């Protein structure tokens, strides 16, 4: 493993000129992004503007046609998702991507284990890994799922599953967290819960969130990137974005999607 720029003073997460097309369809056109440590950054844009594609490029599920991605100064562009996760980046998904037929506790515990690389142990019973289960329970507390520890994931209500969706990502103690529409499909109450959860995330966690709900965005975000048709329309502080003429014209002026 190279230690080039490791824990240096530079930005924690950087993407440079990401391009991606599927045949004739260009879904990402020269997107660049820089996140300092502890960032609170939101990605907004109309449907089809390429937000989830961007996430896939950042997390490694998609390989870019051009451009590069850096984690703490390290070029991770050619790394698959699991390598990037081990380098400190992980994400949650727009559609719940959980482990079927496991309980909440089991899901969190196995995620902690994956983060630790504890899967190499094959002689001791897993249920006796006290440390892992303690940490899993702690995360359950943080995401307010303590009462559901023994519940099988498939039977949970949608909003609760959504919370677990983020919980799994938190379980590996990432340095960089990408949240893809965490409040998708949620009621007002559930959305408020999620907002509190996001607010309670660690200070030094570098956070990038795709969101449609502008209230949430203006609540937590210190910087916002607006995407439109695969390229960056505008980027800046919430105040700058609110004032930006292009944005007002293209996005904020539109009726809700």
């Amino acid at each position, binding site marked *: 493993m190279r230690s080039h720029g490791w824990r240096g003073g530079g930005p924690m997460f950087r993407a440079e000129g990401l391009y991606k097309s599927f045949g004739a369809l260009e879904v990402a056109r020269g997107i660049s992004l820089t996140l300092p440590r502890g960032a609170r950054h939101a990605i907004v844009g109309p449907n089809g503007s390429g937000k989830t594609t961007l996430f896939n490029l950042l*997390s490694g*599920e998609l390989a870019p046609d051009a451009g590069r991605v850096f984690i703490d100064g390290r070029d991770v562009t050619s790394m*698959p*998702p*699991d390598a990037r*996760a*081990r380098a400190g980046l*992980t*994400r949650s*998904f727009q559609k719940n*991507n*959980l*482990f*079927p*037929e*496991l309980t909440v506790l*089991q*899901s969190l*515990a*196995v*995620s902690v*284990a*994956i*983060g630790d690389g*504890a*899967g*190499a*142990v*094959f*002689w*001791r*019973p*897993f*249920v006796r*890994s006290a440390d*892992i289960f303690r940490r899993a329970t702690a995360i359950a507390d943080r995401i307010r799922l303590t009462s559901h520890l023994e519940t099988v994931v498939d039977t949970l209500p949608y909003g609760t599953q959504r919370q677990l969706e983020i919980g*799994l*990502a938190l*379980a*590996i103690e990432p340095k960089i967290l990408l949240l893809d529409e965490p409040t998708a499909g949620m009621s007002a109450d559930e959305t408020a819960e999620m907002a509190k959860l996001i607010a309670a995330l660690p200070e030094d966690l570098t956070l990038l969130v795709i969101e449609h709900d502008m209230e949430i965005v203006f609540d937590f975000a210190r910087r916002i990137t607006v995407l439109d048709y695969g390229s960056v329309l505008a980027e800046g502080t919430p105040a700058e974005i609110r004032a930006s003429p292009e944005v007002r014209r293209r996005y904020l002026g539109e009726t809700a999607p």
Partner: protein
Amino acid sequence: MVLLAAAIGTWWFAGYAGQDRLGEIAIAAIFAMSLDLMVGYGGMVSLGHALFFGLGAYALAGLTLFLKWPPGLALPASVLLTGLVAFAIGRLIVHLGGVFFIMVTLAFGQMGWAWFARDRLFGGIAGLSGIPQIDLSLLGGDLANPADFAIVAVTAATMVYLALARLIESPFGAVVSALHRNAGRARALGCPVQSYKLAVFTIAAMLASLAGTLQAQRTGFVSPDLLVWTSSGELLIMVIIGGIGSLLGPIAGAALWTLLHHYLSAVTPYWMLIMGAFFIAIVLFAAEGLYGALARLAWRRPHV
């Protein structure tokens, strides 16, 4: 526990043929458990598992007959050798998706069969016989005696069962279970999915080869029939009718199939048709197999 008691009971009361059958079932049980590890836990359906069974047997034959190794040494060596081959093959194919993987394993299985069927050194189609058995006279036993062999085989099967149970309950097993349920999420969390699959593939292959070496010890004979695709297919049927994803299921399936096979082929030359229909019925109507059905009766949910 129940099965062990049944095994001991059978051994005690059954005659010569019964004990021979018991040994056969024990070997099949190890073979079936190994496939279940790959299919039920690792999520990789293979139609070429007999390749490793055969490799274990042939390796034992080769080491003892040509290199004159003592069989007690050759047995573990054969298992290790097969493990190496499995590792090499696995590296090529574990990343392939479900249906593709089935095709490729089928092809590799037949490749093994074709090799051994042509290879004159190993006796071609007719195979080799006269494989020496491990000398157990120090323990007062003789592997040529079906009663003694049955004891050894059942002991081996029990040990395999206990070892696999341990493995499945370990963190390794938990991770494998997770990536079986959702490989994409496991990957996104940092799990090197292909490495785990390769590990499962290799372990399953080595256990299959253990079964193969025991088979060579039982009959003193190896032939390409050990590797033919229908053996892999029958094994898959065994595991499925017994119940995927549990360890007792394959054991039950192995016992059921072995017995059915013997009785059916004595009764009619068209046993394949009946087994085929039976298998389809199970897949359609009782996908959890024997074990799942029983578990549903005994407990609320099948123990997975």
